[in-house]
């Protein structure tokens, strides 16, 4: 793990303690899994802390695991332009998660897309509408139980 990221990991442990569920590394990429209750706070901390300095959100998305109790993983990719390091944050949720729009404006469309594709409700989002699919579309295409080739009639 990069030295600057070790500092980030350590700071997160100190600040959030038991709410950090695990920090893993794969292919030189660091992922931290947090409880959904601190989803907003952890991002705000990562942006504002001078050692973390993640001033840019690269991506926010989700993945669906229908067999789990909390079926969705919400995933964010962060980048620090000054420290030149990247970080990934994950949390699992069954439906709702706080919106990150107040932290990064770019989260607006990324969350709209995730809502459109998975049906995850971002609480506090200023404008949660469908974006890629039609306004009156039924279902959420990227859920694993959504068929690729249509339903049987």
């Amino acid at each position: 793990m990069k030295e600057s990221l070790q500092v980030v990991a350590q700071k997160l442990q100190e600040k959030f303690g038991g709410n950090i569920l695990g920090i893993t590394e794969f292919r030189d990429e660091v992922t931290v899994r947090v409880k959904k209750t601190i989803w907003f706070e952890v991002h705000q901390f990562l942006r504002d802390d001078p050692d973390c300095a993640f001033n840019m959100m690269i991506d926010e998305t989700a993945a669906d695991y229908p067999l789990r109790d909390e079926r969705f993983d919400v995933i964010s990719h962060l980048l620090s332009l000054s420290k030149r390091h990247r970080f990934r944050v994950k949390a699992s949720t069954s439906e709702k998660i706080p919106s990150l729009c107040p932290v990064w404006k770019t989260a607006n469309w990324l969350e709209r897309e995730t809502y459109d594709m998975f049906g995850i409700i971002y609480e506090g989002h200023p404008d949660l509408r469908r974006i890629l699919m039609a306004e009156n579309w039924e279902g959420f295409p990227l859920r694993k139980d959504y068929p690729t080739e249509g339903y049987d009639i």
Partner: protein
Amino acid sequence: MQNVMNPVGGDNFQEKGDKRMRLSLGPHHPSTHGVLQVIVDLEGETVVRCDPVPGYLHRGTEKLAENKYYTQIIPLTDRLDYLSPFNNNLSYTMAVEKLVGIEVPERAQWIRLILSELQRIASHLIWFGTHVMDIGAITPFLWAARDRETIMDIFEMCSGARLTLSYTRIGGLMSDVPPGFNEKVHEFTELFHKALKDYNKVVSKNPIFMSRTQGVGVITAEQAIQYGLTGPSLRGSGVEWDLRKHEPYMYYDQLDFEIPLGSTGDSYDRYLVRMEEMEQSNRIIQQALAKLPSKGPVKADDPKIVLPPKELSMSRAEEMQRHFYQVIHGFPAPVGECYFGLEGPKGELGFYIISDGSPRPYRLKIRAPSYVNLQALPLMTEGRMIADVITCIGTIDIVLGEVDR
């Protein structure tokens, strides 16, 4: 019907006797660079609210990818940003290579680098032509199309296709470049160097062009970072961030090039940044050509992932079996997740793959720069004149195939 006529939702202000007018620009309008709808609320000629409505070209690439083997996804990536298919191929392939941990031979990497820069020039040329045409000049578009044609010929020579290249493979390239490649690319770089001077002469100091772009669509550095802009849109605002320089991949750290930066963050600055980028790409290609090894494999030596050479699979039983096995069963990737982003012509083009150990990605997320950059359109246009909307759509350089995926 309500939804179709009024997709932004909210008040129907015409009933309230408001002076505002709602104008739906697109989805079929030449200046929207594809099937983009922009709903603008106007007071007189001033834009008070701007709401881009993407999605008309949505094909569900991410969903399709979940049902395909890693190699089968390469053709899908051609159809994202169809003005720079090679960069899409490359970014996806390098993400998978990172996931499975395979080393790509040196010659293949250099060829990839050269083609990637050629593709950047081709993409910028289309941007240049259409952007300037939106503003009113037609000749530069014809010039740009002429020079892009040479690049398309080079791609056709290598891959057989002009637009849907699918030229990369996991672990290398589809095949080696044909003889005459170096000469053709070299010829192009010399020609293009001269052509670029002509472009600058005709457009860059043109008073009409300058008054249409200077001070239009201003994005400050802080806003650019808040909105997650990448690529020339970020550098136009004066933020020095280029993945080729700051997180070098392939052999960019061995090459000498500069990152052009803007200062005010208006459309004219972004124009200058892209024009200079083409010059720098041209320089990179010239240096890379000199460093390109004349011989060597273009595919990694990994029998589990890379298909055997065609002549062997046609003549020997083992290779034929391997060929069939790989095509039918794919190759499993290790359990894990990884993200790889490269500096595409529009910005950071990234692929995020979650693997569950099967030969298909469990989840593939495409981080499309056009999608993220388009979000800044309301910021640039609100409070300005309707004519500036056209300039602003041109200046962020979007491709709807990538926005909608």
